């Protein structure tokens, strides 16, 4: 990795915690700047805290504060909350969304972009977010195109795409990563509680996997 920025684009607060927070912590420790575009505030989440402390109307405020704290803990100095509404990304104009991303890519000139693998990321917001990022990068001349690493977790992803080609061990920063996860308290308190009782559940968080998106074959 050089010192050029990394650009992370996900739709929901906490999407960054599960699959990439360890990588982000490692990079930020190396002085690599990280920008995170978080498209929504997860306004439509079902988890209201455990025990319940949020309502449908107060949830976005809680999640915004959680996102800010999680970003601080992950070493993200440039968090941009993009103001879209949870569950609606697939209904936005894809090119308009791609143009928003292109604008940021021109501004930052990142070495790497991280998002969800379109079609392999289960939640419609994930797939639509990833598809718009791919569209954005497709619009750039290939010599200006940063590397694109995708997170995916649908049941068929390995069958279709093979194993992830980037596998990063983040054991050295696992405590910090779990702190990022825990910062999203309204959503993750039950998982954190389970992990306290059964530390072996931490194992899956110690590795972060990505599929490098190939533009040539598409």
């Amino acid at each position: 990795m050089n010192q050029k920025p990394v650009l992370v684009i996900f739709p929901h607060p906490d999407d960054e915690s599960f699959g990439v927070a360890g990588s982000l912590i490692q990079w930020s420790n190396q002085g690599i700047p990280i920008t995170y575009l978080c498209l929504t505030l997860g306004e439509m989440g079902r988890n209201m805290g455990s025990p319940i402390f949020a309502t449908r109307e107060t949830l976005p405020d809680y999640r915004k504060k959680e996102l800010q704290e999680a970003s601080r803990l992950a070493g993200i100095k440039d968090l941009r909350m993009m103001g879209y509404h949870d569950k609606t990304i697939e209904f936005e104009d894809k090119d308009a969304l791609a143009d928003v991303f292109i604008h940021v890519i021109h501004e930052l000139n990142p070495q790497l972009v991280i998002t969800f693998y379109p079609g392999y990321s289960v939640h419609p917001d994930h797939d639509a977010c990833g598809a718009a990022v791919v569209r954005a990068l497709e619009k750039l001349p290939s010599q200006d195109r940063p590397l694109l690493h995708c997170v995916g977790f649908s049941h068929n992803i390995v069958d279709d795409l093979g194993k992830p080609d980037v596998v990063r061990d983040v054991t050295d920063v696992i405590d910090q990563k779990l702190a990022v996860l825990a910062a999203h308290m309204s959503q993750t308190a039950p998982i954190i509680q389970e992990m306290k009782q059964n530390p072996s559940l931490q194992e899956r968080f110690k590795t972060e996997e990505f599929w490098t998106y190939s533009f040539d074959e598409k």
Partner: protein
Amino acid sequence: MKPIERHLVQPLIEKFKNKKIYVHLETTNGAYATHTDQTFHSAGAFIRNARVEFSQGKLTGKGPYRVGLKMELGWIYAEGLTDFEMDEKGRLLLAGHNHEGKLAVALELSEHPF
């Protein structure tokens, strides 16, 4: 929010009767239901800031509760409601939480847009 008590919530519904109001209505089983259990048919819907007016509104059931709001040309209906709150903005928030505390249904009434 607090557990619904009919004698407390019924008068709160009445406050919104015969007025132009805004409604948020939602059901959800989560975006991951089918991912977790492939036999599960995931379904949900929401409408936010629908402008409506109702002439009759009732809370029924023994818990979880149901609400029906009768409009000039139709109905608004929600079931599975367990908790309520009149928030500081004067909005009536009704929600149904499942055994894990996850939101399954929400019906909210406000005199101003959400």
